[in-house]
């Protein structure tokens, strides 16, 4: 049996290499080149032709710790479309390991959280039964769930054995009279970010523009790259509602298939996470003349700026200019409320030192709001900030060197273990660096459980900082066991520890662990 498997694979590999030259793989290759050549991306424009061809994502380093694959990236972008059945054409693990692992929220359908996979087995791989199984799986989903659309994801194994998911999807769509969308982003083609972009391409090729809305209006917008994590977009949507602005499609957070399919009739687009879907925004502008801007709902000033920009673009596209005045009035009112709420935290957080280490949450605006209530920023990453933002941050920070592109885990650990910050705000990836360096940590990436967008979200963020910093466990975390301070235990009662002993003990303890820890 074992030799049989090996033989099966070698045969398939031949097919695969042939495909690279001719079949589906070559079209994928062209797609990747196209995605890399992104004129909407400022960085990309600065590159020469050769560098551009290499691609915009860092090449993977075998043997070094790395993030998710292209499949993961594609799934992240598309899965929050809530009423679609997401079918993963793969052996079990691709879906099994990524099933329901992101905190996007749905206001209605729950189908997106149901795990669909073809669960390919050894025999399927050897005998090449993948395509047949996939077709059957599509039929079974159609019969059992009747979703508005099915997204079919190719993966390493099914791409390697040469399953032509585009052909299967095409045939299934005809047969079942249902949009069946191939998502051609197998894991091995590259990074997570590349997968994000390929997902955007799939939407452009197969979804957006396929349905004409019967209610298009002058106040329709798209929001791209907003994932509705912890339902945070719901903190923003009421603001848009009050202005009479309709979100035609939020891609992908809390989206419905039909909304996405008719997104081409929106008048303006706000691009929230540009690194993920900039290609989508640019091509929608190209194809359907929908202007876009890059903005953020994190922080008070950024939220206001985003609302202004949306209004401006709508006016540019023919909406009544009176919306500009209404927008300003709303901003005035909401900002006042938010600042007032934030002021309540000043007494508890004044002088606290925060280290921001994140790309996702735009730094400037959050930095601004935190400093406004007396928090000191001892460092902030500016990896995803614009040059203007960087200038602004430079201006308000005491030291320029508190701004960094990225920080290596080792430096991060050294900084934290020297107790140069009271809390770190970051994604889950660096969570344990903070915790092991005995510093409180607050999750501001996708696994978090609190919504931070909009005015109310900023208040929530500050509240969470307050809770995290003031949890009593940190004192325990920082102090060594009491028996370390007692040279002559008999002389001292159990609970008394002299202050100086504590400080010395802490230094000693922190110093040794920092050195012993090494690379993390």
């Amino acid at each position, binding site marked *: 049996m074992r030799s049989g498997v090996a033989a099966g694979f070698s045969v398939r590999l031949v097919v695969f290499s042939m495909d690279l030259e001719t079949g589906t793989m070559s079209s994928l290759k062209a797609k990747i080149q196209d995605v890399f050549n992104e004129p909407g991306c400022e960085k990309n424009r600065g590159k020469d032709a050769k560098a551009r061809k290499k691609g915009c994502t860092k090449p993977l380093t075998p043997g070094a710790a790395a993030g998710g694959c292209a499949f993961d990236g594609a799934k992240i972008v598309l899965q929050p479309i809530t009423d679609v059945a997401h079918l993963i054409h793969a052996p079990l693990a691709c879906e099994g390991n990524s*099933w*329901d*692992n992101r*905190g996007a*929220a*749905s*206001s*209605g*359908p*729950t189908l997106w959280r149901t795990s669909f996979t073809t669960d390919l087995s050894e025999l399927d791989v050897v005998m090449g039964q993948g395509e047949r199984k996939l077709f059957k799986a599509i039929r079974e989903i159609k019969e059992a769930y009747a979703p508005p659309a099915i997204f079919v994801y190719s993966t390493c194994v099914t791409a390697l054995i040469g399953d032509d998911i585009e052909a299967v999807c095409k045939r299934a769509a005809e047969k079942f009279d249902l949009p069946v969308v191939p998502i051609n982003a197998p894991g091995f083609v590259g990074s997570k970010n590349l997968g994000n972009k390929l997902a955007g391409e799939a939407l452009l090729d197969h979804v957006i523009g396929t349905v004409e809305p019967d209610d298009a209006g002058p106040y329709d917008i798209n929001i791209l790259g907003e994932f509705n994590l*912890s*339902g945070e977009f719901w903190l923003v949507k009421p603001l848009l509602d009050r202005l009479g602005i309709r979100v035609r499609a939020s891609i992908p957070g809390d989206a419905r298939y039909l909304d996405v399919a008719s997104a081409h009739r929106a008048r303006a687009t706000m691009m929230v996470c540009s690194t993920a879907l900039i290609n989508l925004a640019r091509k929608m502008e190209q194809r359907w003349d929908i202007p876009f801007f890059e903005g953020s709902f994190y922080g008070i000033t950024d939220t206001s700026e985003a609302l202004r920009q949306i209004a401006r673009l709508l006016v540019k596209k023919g909406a009544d200019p009176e919306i500009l005045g209404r927008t300003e009035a709303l901003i005035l009112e909401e900002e006042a409320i938010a600042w007032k709420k934030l002021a309540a935290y000043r007494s508890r957080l004044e002088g606290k030192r925060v280290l921001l280490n994140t790309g996702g949450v735009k730094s400037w605006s959050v930095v601004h709001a935190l400093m406004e209530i007396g928090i000191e920023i001892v460092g902030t990453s500016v990896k995803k900030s614009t040059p203007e933002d960087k200038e602004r941050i430079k201006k308000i920070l005491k030291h320029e060197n508190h701004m960094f592109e990225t920080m290596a885990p080792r430096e991060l650990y050294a900084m934290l273990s020297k107790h140069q910050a009271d809390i770190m705000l970051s994604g889950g990836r660096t969570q344990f660096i903070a*915790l092991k360096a005995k510093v*409180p940590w*607050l999750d501001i990436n996708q*696994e978090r*459980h609190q919504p931070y967008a909009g005015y109310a979200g900023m208040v929530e963020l500050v509240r*969470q900082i307050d*809770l*995290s910093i*003031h*949890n*009593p*466990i*940190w004192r*325990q*975390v920082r102090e060594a*066991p*009491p*028996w370390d301070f*007692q040279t002559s*235990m*008999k002389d*001292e009662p*159990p*609970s008394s520890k002299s202050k100086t002993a504590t400080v010395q003990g802490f230094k000693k303890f922190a110093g040794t662990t920092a050195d012993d820890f090494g690379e993390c």
Partner: protein
Amino acid sequence: MPQSAEKILDHAPLFREPEYRQMLAEKKLNFECPHQDQAVTDQHEFTKTWEYREKSLAREALVINPAKACQPLGAVFAAAGFERTMPFVHGSQGCVAYYRSHLSRHFKEPASAVSSSMTEDAAVFGGLKNMVDGLANTYKLYDPKMIAVSTTCMAEVIGDDLRSFIENAKEEGSVPRDFDVPFAHTPAFVGSHVDGYDGTVKGILEHFWKGKQRTEASGTINIIPGFDGFCVGNNRELKRLLDLMGVSYTFIQDASDQFDTPSDGEYRMYDGGTKIQDVRNALNAEATLSLQHYNTRKTLLYCEEVGQATAAFHYPLGVQATDEFLVKVSAISDKEIPEAIRLERGRLVDAMADSQSWLHGKKYAIYGDPDFVYAMARFIMETGGEPTHCLATNGTPAWEAEMKELLASSPFGKDAQIWAGKDLWAMRSLLFTEPVDLLIGNSYGKYLERDTGTPLIRLMFPIFDRHHHHRFALMGYQGGLRVLTTILDKIFDKLDRETSKTGVTDYSYDLTR
């Protein structure tokens, strides 16, 4: 009939069948003269108000749902922690049946105890004859190595004197002259089970130590655990820690084996417990440590009288309390706390840090024995929670003062309230008027959970309606980890329940928490 041989319904679903519902409804309507539904609802609503709370707290005579047991229960539990010792309760046998079922239902183990079965004539003429016969029968029937005598109210009311009764019984040959029959007067109308425990352990120590010469063995420690429904897990965990340190110690009273015997075909009426010889030798220990101050107030005084150093703790649970205990043990025994224990401590601290965002600011109501409530309140504050209501029906003014000091030591105790001497009906009002996130107590709390919707965490004796919790330690760093996990489970279960409604709240029904 809804019941059929094909599919037998359990009573829970059976009586929900229409026939039974109708029958019960008609019975209520026709024979029970019920109040109008509205009147019942109104009264029910009234019991949730501040006005009702004030009335309820002002109660002077009536106690509703007390969270305490009586002295002889503590005495029986204490006696069960010594080698081949039969608890003998002088008084009426009905009480003793209660102690046995109480212990049995909690530990899921047989609990042996006998009584002198006093009846009306004994009440009139005194219980001497019952004592004489009782000791003789116990000695013959159950082959004990020691009989520990305590009393029920009945014997106390008529004033039976145990010392002279036991003396007389020995005169009459009930048991051999040199047979060990320690005793303690344990009237249920004084104090609670923690005092019965105290009295019994003191009685046993006095019995063996009185008039003996003490030669101090430096560095040796006696440990008295106190009345502890988690003794099975706790005592074993503490022994593990002490063994890791290499301390020379004796547990005085250890029911961990008695209440956790294996199923291997052999019935053990007696198992484990402190060896009689060890109790004798314990006189020479340098120090006696009590794990529960309010369980050993008299015992520790006696230990001091014989010349031992003493120290009392409040159920060492969580980081600081365990630290204090270990540091004390280390100081007396002159043994260092090894690296292995330091790692355990670090792991508990790590776990608490990992979960802090879920625990921060949670409000708790805690009830139970004084030391336990103290320990839990302290641990809760370590996790950033607020012990909003701390209630001990058997809490004394001294306990109240100690609690005040504890709560004042942390900002998380700022709004906490201490309720010494109050009952669970008062707790019900407290939960309605000043709600909390979690209730920590024993099985009796399930009615509060049902009425007020406050999730209950069972960490206190007795636990009748959940199995085997007592087999896992609460004390020490490992125990802290277990308490932490239990609390977190409750929080996450509740969150899952609240977010599980499909299409309504399930936007937050997350896989990863």
